[in-house]
């Protein structure tokens, strides 16, 4: 990994006419670029013990597909080469048995697909409303439930179903918009983003939807929380310095610090299974590509 330039800055943000001082001491990590095709990407994740990644890419003019990329040589293949529907927002269970993702259905509806790779079966959850959508599904560590963002009557809320796409449970019923749920590694908590108090802030709740409490409270948006494998830290994307950067906060809400510092967008953080690297989608070279950030260069406080 390239050495990091230690940039220490105090960032002033003008928000609603008021100067807000956001203090961040940070090194500016030098991410390693993993892809160079520049196609629009979103929602990557590590699979196969960190040997490969899966992500969604806008790889054809009218198609968004799931792509698996082997890290050893960068070889990319579509997960479902023959599928004509759009696929995105993938997740894979820890043991690799289940693959879930969002798939477009009857326009403009999108549905949850849970694929049991061991049994060769596929289950679906279809929103009630003809325009309802599913986004950002995540499989629970015990592989019993899938939590996701559900846009259906009742607004945009966090919900979960079992691995067969049944037994829907609504975990939030709040004003505003709820999105980007993520299970803690022990499966007891869910981090998510919600605008119930204004802008998007990070919240935590128990896996059953109880005990909702704020994790961050910055005026600009915090989104896409991702738990570290040890459950002690949460990476997220935030616009708190004016454009989207990657941040890490302790799971108790303390010690928020910035990981990236670039005028272009850094987004969609996910942890490597070793907990020492973050995978992100960045536009720092103008196009949308995957980058790997070595966290050994980032102080923990």
């Amino acid at each position: 990994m390239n050495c990091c330039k230690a940039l220490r800055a105090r960032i002033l943000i003008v928000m609603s006419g008021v100067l807000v001082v956001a203090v961040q001491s940070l090194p500016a990590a030098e991410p390693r670029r993993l892809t160079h095709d520049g196609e629009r990407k979103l929602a990557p994740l590590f699979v196969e013990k960190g040997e490969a990644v899966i992500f969604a890419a806008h790889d054809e003019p009218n198609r968004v597909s799931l792509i698996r990329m082997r890290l050893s040589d960068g070889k990319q293949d579509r997960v479902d080469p023959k599928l004509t529907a759009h696929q995105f927002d993938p997740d894979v269970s820890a043991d690799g048995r289940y693959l879930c993702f969002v798939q477009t259905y009857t326009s403009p509806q999108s549905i949850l697909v849970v694929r049991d790779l061991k049994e060769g079966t596929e289950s679906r959850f279809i929103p009630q409303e003809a325009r309802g959508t599913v986004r950002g599904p995540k499989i629970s560590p015990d592989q019993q439930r899938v939590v996701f963002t559900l846009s259906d009557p009742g607004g945009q809320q966090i919900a979960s179903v079992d691995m067969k796409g049944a037994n829907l449970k609504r975990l939030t019923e709040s004003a505003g918009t709820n999105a980007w749920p993520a299970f803690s590694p022990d499966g007891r908590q869910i981090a998510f983003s919600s605008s119930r108090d204004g802008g998007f802030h990070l919240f935590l709740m128990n896996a059953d939807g109880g005990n909702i409490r704020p994790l961050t409270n910055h005026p600009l948006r915090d989104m896409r929380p991702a738990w570290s494998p040890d459950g002690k830290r949460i990476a997220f994307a935030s616009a708190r310095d004016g454009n989207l950067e990657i941040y890490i906060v302790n799971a108790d809400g303390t010690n928020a610090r910035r990981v990236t510092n670039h005028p272009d967008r850094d987004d969609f953080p996910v942890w490597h299974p070793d907990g020492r690297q973050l995978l992100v989608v960045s536009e720092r070279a103008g196009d949308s590509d995957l980058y790997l950030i070595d966290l050994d260069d980032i102080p923990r406080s």
Partner: protein
Amino acid sequence: MFGFGNYRVRDCQGLTRRSFLRFGAGLPFAAGMFGSDHLAQGAELAKAKSVMMIWLVGGPSHLDLFDPKPNAPAEFRGPFAAISTRTAGMQFTELLPRLAAGSDRFSVVRTNINYNGGHRPAGSIAWTCGRASDGGEDGNGKPTGYPPHLGSIIARSRSSSGLPAFMSLARGPVGDGVGPCLGYGGGIWGSRYDPFMVDCSKLGQVSISELKLLDGLTPARLNDRQRVLGELNRVRRGLDLAQLDQWDGLHQKALQLLRGGDTLNAFDLSRESASTRTRYGRTSFGQSCLLGRRLVEAGVSYVQVNWSQFAEVFYPFSDYGWDTHADNFGLLADWHGPLLDQVLSTLLEDLHDRGLLEQTLVVCLGEFGRTPRINSIGSRDHWHPCYFSVWAGGGVRPGRVIGESDARGEYPLTNPITPEMVGTTIAELAGVGTQQRAEYRVLEGGRVIDELL
């Protein structure tokens, strides 16, 4: 790849000058066709040599972009925070940080209105700048006689630059799931004034599929005038009556393009530096805007860049661009917001840096906005009583916010900006003055948006 008809001629990234010149040298005829029957006259405000219309098809949410309402109730305001811009008193949402930082290059109107809440009629009304509440359709969706598109009006008023004067950058006609917007062309003036359709991919590959009737017309054949004429006649003989009318317009456009000579280089994005192409982003919308800038440089009078099927798509329902009935906030956060912020800010910077902004009027808007009240599935639907437009260059005074919407963004508090006013302002700045508009019998009843000037 630059394609003529269905014959793929070359890859834009590896284009040779020789090849382009072969086009021009082979057809030194057909002068005077298309878009040159009058010169502009009598327009006192004329500053814009060219107009770039950035068309956000589908209806972008005004509250989530250029007219945030941070103090509105939760069921209206949306999740995106308001950020200050370089323009005093004007806020955007946090989805647009680059545009906020460069807001001194443009002005924003916050009280646009349309007369219809359906995509196709509203699009037609916005482009033809008329009050026809039915968008020029009868009850069965058939055209009842459209006024000409604004681009057709401006194209007609200009002398030819060697390229068609009204060019549309899109993969196909703009519309919705029912069909195309019928006001996208010459209307009652005829297909002669329809836009010249050009497709530009995310890699900058350019093709002109509209000329598919000219299948088989290869570069080698184009060097021989007699052979070309024979080829055109051969194709013409193969057409039925219904196709003949279309043929006349296409025929003229093809010849217009082919006699353009060096101006055809405008289609070659490989002539741009890698850094410039990267700044616009590797998306169809981004590269189309870059292509639009090149066409403006080449003297094209009116370029319309269309978002969506057209330029960018994410979900099937986003074939309709900004028509985010579902997942509005997710789509805008993931996709639409960053893309618009990157491309529009880059376009304005690029035009400015090249000294082109003063002579190029850039207008960015859609057919309407989206419901301020968030719908039952946490998204936003169509809203035509109040929305936004962005104006830059071509005589527009930058760094201003024009008009004010109410506390929830539902209705204008100040004078509404009508489609007629939008059209009249663009026409005046492009040199189509009162006298000429009267002569054409177009844009009647409109007035210039004085606050923009």
